């Protein structure tokens, strides 16, 4: 017997969104009932649209309408500089500084045994091949300044130890425990300038 109301089912679905708890999910679901049907449909279409049209770049792991993504495809970007970031949100944060003209590699997470994230779960396999391609001269590690981000950076520096590239890490102008995506642009630009050899 399925006694769950449509509102409950929608709330459950919304509850999957990051940062939305069961209470907020219910509040959003109830609020949606007051919208025009057209408005709701437009939002639903947008969600399906994103899912069908946004692709993950097979070169760097960035998200975009094309594969390779617009950054990998841009001939003006400096391919000798490769920045490793944890998430697409962090890539976008660095892009907003307009300070970095190289290309990226997006890991899609951080090492965290407590959350069951091991190296296989990250977009790591293609990284040595990208570097073996020969164009890359410097790999800049820009992982989050957290315990997990640091461990990931450490793991990468071990992984790249034999590769013919310079491995640097962005400086810690960033408050520890903070979210790279939320950092202000000045702080991020400074951190970028202060990268150091590992």
């Amino acid at each position: 017997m399925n006694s769950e109301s449509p509102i409950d089912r929608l709330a459950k679905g919304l509850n999957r969104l990051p940062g939305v708890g069961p209470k907020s999910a219910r509040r959003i679901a109830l609020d949606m009932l007051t919208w025009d049907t057209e408005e709701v449909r437009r939002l639903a279409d947008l969600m399906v649209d994103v899912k069908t049209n946004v692709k993950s770049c097979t070169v760097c792991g960035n998200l975009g309408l094309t594969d390779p993504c617009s950054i990998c495809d841009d001939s003006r970007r400096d391919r000798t500089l490769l920045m490793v970031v944890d998430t697409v949100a962090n890539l976008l944060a660095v892009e907003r500084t307009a300070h970095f003209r190289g290309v990226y590699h997006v890991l899609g997470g951080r090492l965290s045994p407590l959350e069951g994230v091991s190296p296989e779960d990250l977009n790591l396999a293609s990284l040595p091949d990208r570097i073996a391609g020969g164009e890359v001269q410097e790999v800049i590690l820009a992982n989050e300044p957290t315990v997990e981000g640091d461990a990931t950076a450490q793991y990468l520096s071990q992984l790249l130890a034999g590769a013919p590239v310079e491995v640097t890490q962005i400086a810690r102008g960033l408050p520890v425990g903070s979210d790279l995506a939320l950092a202000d642009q000045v702080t991020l630009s400074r951190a970028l300038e202060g990268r150091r050899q590992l």
Partner: protein
Amino acid sequence: MHLSRLKLTDYRNFDRTTVELPVEGIAISGQNGRGKSNLLEAIFFLAIAKSARGAQDRDVVRWGAQSFVVEGSIIRQDVPIELRVAFDSQQQKKKAFVDGEPLPRVSGIVGQFNAVLFSPEDVDLVLRTPAERRRLLDILISQSNPSHLSDLETYRRVLAQRNRLLKDEGHRLRVDSSQLDAWDSQLAEAGARIVSDRLATLSFIEARACSFYQRISSEAQALSLAYRGAVASSAADARFSDLLDALRSRREDEIRLGHTLSGPHRDHLVFQLDGRPVHKFGSKGQMKSALLSWKLAEAVYLEAHTGHQPVLLMDDVFSELDASRASSVLELVDDFGQVVLTTARDPDLDIREGRYGVVDL
């Protein structure tokens, strides 16, 4: 520094209570079970945003209530500061405020208000449990040095990650330990700093605690504090690499057992009388005097390292003391700043003639 007003809402057995505290201190008297220890625990909550007895936040909420609030008006060098710690058990959320401003992290309140809590009830537990003795030292250091707290938080997080890795991926680590290496340097970095802070603090405390012990106890034994651990005897600048070596040298055992075997979380702090561990050979009275000496030394340490006299919270100190011992403790305590003491006895002459006003709970 002193606490001028304490306001409790649904904290332990108090639904709504406000206590005004004179600058020199106060004696709180009341029969057993009235909440004297709870009151001191609440005051200490303002110092570390946690229960001094290690209770869970939800257990501190008054039975039948949903949340508790501890508010304190502090005067620090003539500047009034309002502190507030609130916990809601439904949301499982604890928040700390300084002058009405919410802090980004609750632990950010540590260092705002310094206090030293002595309670004879805890003597056995503290002296007999290695983890409690480490906690004693770490709480003290954190009160004067916030970076110790952040080192401890980092260390605990890395340790939890590393232990999970050892537990879940043992078979794989035997072949390829690169994942373990990725956590080791962070663990050793934070670990080396923690050990260094602990040793520096202990050398300050030991001398003072030893002289307090002589004054409190009528016996001629010497109190000393021994710290034992993987890198306790390393030179300060070698602690990082020595800790890393200690981790590497026990790697096979760690993989077999599934947890981390060296580091400050395994180190030992031992109270000794004439070189013998108090927790093994000391009498009840000796253990009590040893911990009281440590606590008084804590107060000296905090004043020296923060520039402010901490508030002394003395729970039931006279419970097992005869009149002359009690008055000698009162005399010692006279050298400190604000004192909040509790007694289950009828307020006796010692206290009435002392500098403290007595309130009944």
